[in-house]
């Protein structure tokens, strides 16, 4: 497997600025410094179409476009469909996980989460770093 480009742009999406800050700081600790933010699915989708990202980490419950809708849009877009997509969300029912899986999520982290879980899931999606 090719070495991971630690400078690849990562897009994080959450409507809570606190969570964006947490994820950004944890990614920074892991070595990912090139991080952009969006506060809802629609804004994220626009960023994805404007710039090439190596990974997206998104919340689910957002307005006007949710994380699930964003995932569906990404997987339906020929240019974006292969993008690794990790959902980080408080939605913790079985039906949620299955819906995300059906929509093509790369991995799923339930909040509250810790740094070790984030690293494990990132590794499973993009490879060792």
């Amino acid at each position: 497997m090719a070495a991971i480009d630690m400078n690849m742009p990562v897009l994080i999406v959450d409507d809570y600025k606190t969570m964006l800050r947490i994820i950004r700081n944890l990614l920074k600790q892991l070595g990912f410094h090139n991080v952009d933010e969006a506060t809802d699915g629609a804004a994220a989708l626009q960023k994805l179409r404007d710039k090439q990202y190596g990974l997206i980490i998104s919340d689910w419950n957002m307005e006007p476009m949710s994380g699930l809708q964003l995932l569906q849009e990404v997987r339906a877009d020929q240019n974006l469909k292969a993008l690794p997509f990790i959902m980080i969300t408080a939605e913790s029912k079985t039906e949620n996980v299955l819906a995300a899986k059906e929509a093509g999520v790369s991995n799923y982290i339930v909040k509250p989460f810790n740094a070790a879980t984030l690293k494990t899931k990132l590794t499973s999606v993009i490879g060792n770093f």
Partner: protein
Amino acid sequence: MVAALLPEDLSKRVQELAKKRPEIDPADIIEVVESVMTSISGDLSAVNLKLYAEIESLARFINQAKSEIAALRPDEIKDEHLATATDELEAIVGSTEQATNQIFEAVEMIESLAPTMPPETSEKITAAVTSVYEACGFQDITGQRITKVVHALQHIEGKVEGLLNAFGQEFQRAPAGAKADGGKKLPPGKTARPDEHLMNGPQRPESAISQDDIDALLGFD
């Protein structure tokens, strides 16, 4: 003469019968028909009386229910209590976010000093800082739980509004200076999202599934 007591159509039929069966006395037929009609009329009156009594009882019940509901002051509930509750809850979200940002400022500053420390100290600082970041995730969960409560209150507010509209002027409305609805409802014409039914929000520990359960469902790791 007796036939004159019957309705015209029945009288004619009795006369026709008398012609066909001369051995039967028309007076006997008329007597039977009369008694049948009398019994039916009596039953109809009893049914009507019973129905009127039920309707009257229902009307009394409705009036009493309206009085009791009016005593609850639904206008006050909607315009003051519910509005206050949602405002307070949103203030909680705002203040916890502010406090969390303050924590971040301090912790990020500490983290920036870690590279200047001896390796062992740096490692400990980084671990502690990471722990603080993880703990600050509470603000997100708290915010989502409060949002659930706010939505529930808005739903109740909608029901109370419906009640007020149904009873119109009978329930005294609050004065003009009372707090108006903060526009938290869906704008006119806006429809729910396709995945609205999956918007359950944070779950109580006893009903949420664990990260291990999720991993097992996904089967990715």
